């Protein structure tokens, strides 16, 4: 009996060990390029490890049972007449409940750190559009009282393109240029059907719903060019509805901005 539980503990620790090893050494995610990304990847890692432990454990149990309890040739007897076991049932109700609760609370914490739980002020002063309701996308934790950051850009989504309007410069661009390490607020509106604004490297996504202007905040942390992808089926050219976000350092951004700025003319 002692021997048996020794093996059981050994096997469980091997499974947990393998899962941790895979969880820490296999990267399934793209580059991290915003404040949100490392937070997201932390959650992903935890979920990945827990998932691996459960999956490897269950698969091992099924395959082990298939080999261990195979019926032998010409055998017609029955297995043990076991109908249930209350303590086992309690164990596998309680342990998953605890795991699920832990995951739920942990992801709530992650979500809070991403700024998802902040209520946005409707009718915000800098982006007041005739007292219409502005819907909150997932926002950024810093500067928590105000939903809007320093750089405000208006995004129009239409079949099948994104247009980026820089109100301070009164110009429209087909590419989204933003300065690095600065909180960006975009106000998104759709001209026709539902679109979605997704930057995989930033781990953010928000549907752009016609009739519901939505604010999305993010802070890029890495200079580079990343895709902006429409993730909601919007018509025949949905797959081609892509744009780019170019994250530059502040001086490059200002040079680009001044080149396009129409208020200076």
């Amino acid at each position, binding site marked *: 009996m002692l021997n048996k539980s020794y093996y059981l503990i050994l096997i469980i620790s091997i499974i947990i060990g393998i899962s941790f090893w895979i969880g820490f050494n296999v990267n399934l995610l793209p580059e991290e390029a915003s404040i949100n990304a490392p937070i997201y990847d932390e959650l992903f890692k935890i979920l990945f490890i827990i998932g691996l432990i459960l999956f490897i454990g269950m698969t091992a149990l099924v395959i082990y049972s298939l080999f261990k309890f195979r019926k032998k040739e010409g055998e017609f007897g029955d*297995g043990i007449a076991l109908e249930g076991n209350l303590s086992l049932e309690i164990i596998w109700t309680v342990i998953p409940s605890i795991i699920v609760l832990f995951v739920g609370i942990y992801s709530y914490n992650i979500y809070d750190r991403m700024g998802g739980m902040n209520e946005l002020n409707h009718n915000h002063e800098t982006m007041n559009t005739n007292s219409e309701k502005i819907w909150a996308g997932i926002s950024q934790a810093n500067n928590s009282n105000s939903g809007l950051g320093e750089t405000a850009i208006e995004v129009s989504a239409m079949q099948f393109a994104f247009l980026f309007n820089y109100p301070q410069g009164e110009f429209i661009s087909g590419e989204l240029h933003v300065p690095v390490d600065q909180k960006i607020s975009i106000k998104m509106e759709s001209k026709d059907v539902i679109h979605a604004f997704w930057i995989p490297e930033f781990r953010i996504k928000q549907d752009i719903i016609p009739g519901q202007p939505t604010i999305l905040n993010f802070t890029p942390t890495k200079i580079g060019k990343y895709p902006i992808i429409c993730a909601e089926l919007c018509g025949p050219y949905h*797959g081609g509805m892509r744009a780019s976000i170019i994250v530059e350092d502040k001086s490059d951004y200002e040079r680009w901005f001044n080149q396009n700025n129409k208020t200076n003319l």
Partner: protein
Amino acid sequence: MTILIDNKAKLKESLQPKGFLRYFSFSLDHKVIGIQYLVCGFLFYLVGGTLASAIRIELISPLSDFLPRDVYNQVLTLHGTIMIFLWIVPVVNGAFGNYLIPFYVGARDMAFPRLNAVAFWLIPPSGLMLIASYFIEGAAQSGWTAYPPLSITTPQSGQIIWILSVLLLGGSSIFGGINFIVTILKLRRPGLKLMNLPMYCWAMLGTSILVVLSTPVLAGTLILLSFDIVAHTGFFNPALGGNVVVYQHLFWFYSHPAVYIMVLPAFGLVSEILPIHCRKPLFGYTTMVFSIMGIVVLGLVVWAHHMFTSGTPPWMRLFFTIATAFIAVPTGIKFFNWVATMWGGKISLNSAMLFSCGFIINFVFGGITGVALAQVPFDIHVHDTYFVVAHFHYIVYGGSVFVIFSSIYHWYPKVVGKLLNENLGYLHFALTFIGFNLCFAPQHWLGLNGMPRRVAEYDPQFQFVNQISSLGALFMAISTIPFLINIIISIKKGEIAGNNPWKGLNPRMVNDFSSSCRKLGRRGSISK
């Protein structure tokens, strides 16, 4: 009075066509209707599978070069609609439910045989109508979710026919649901207590409750949507002051329970199949019953997890995260109980058992990604990407379809009287299992790294992984060949099954293949 009814029924029976033709008649026999559902569903599965192949061929290259773009959207819409409404829902509910439930509860037939026949005969015409819509002005092209305003602005005829077809199929589903509830609750043979019902009856009871509660909501929503399309009302049209998010709430109020409508009966079927091939009673009957009912209740309050990126308020995101994640608990109980059923058994590793084990492994994987998807911050990145596509194919294909095949291998001898060829069954399983995992496992990575779903063109960096996925789809397509050969050849040339093909010792197994009935081993009598 009863005699009178019986005479009438006898008269009707004598007017029914005999032999093969009865499958093409308005038959009132639950066994005939069950087979009608199964064969009809399988034919639509072949259509849906062909459409899936077209999608995978398109995605071999990163450019949109195989199908015209609007046709591609029609193909993915029809693929989703056909696979859900014409294959999985009718087969796991209608086919096995009609065939097995009267046997299991000890009734002569379903409670409302005519309603039953009507429910079946709504399916072929609405399915054909759906496919035919392609030849008018093109089929619907707004996905199986038909989100407005896209569904309002795309060509009308296809969308309207889609709505009509789904309404008819929904009606069929409701008729079936009512019939199952009444049959299970009212037509049990005397002395058969609820807590002695075979597990599949419980699963069907739970499923039917979901069908009856949620399908009418879908029907109402689609009728409003059709008003928006035809009469230019503004329920969901933002240009006329409508709100598109309301549509999403109403749609998912049905369509999330729809997942359980596809999966709960599969759970029930597995609970019938495992004990026989493991030669052990089902482990933890009572908790299995409660977990089914737990899934039914929770399944009704999780719909908004499909809308985490649609501008839902934070408190709603939180509530739906927790409710969704908690479904993992009753679902997990079922899986642990199945493994415990296998533990210490005398397992015959035949095709039915292999498909059931494949189901357990695939579904555990899909369930784990499901718990991850329930977490708002996780979902926000992968929502509407191939990660979600992979997740729900693990649930509905790796789950439900594997169980359908398992059930076909298990009950074919009962229905046809002949055994299926086991070697072809092994081949079918190997091709399906390898093909399925090759096709869908890589899609998780695609979604995490930036490939949205429902696209005909994609970033060239994803080409290699998409080709692996398409190779898996090819395996899956090929896997139907040994299955079909097996089914057709065995009708004529199969070994005679006899009354007890799975060598069950229990008299009940010999008679009607009922398995998880607790009387099997309720008092520990199974081994005596």
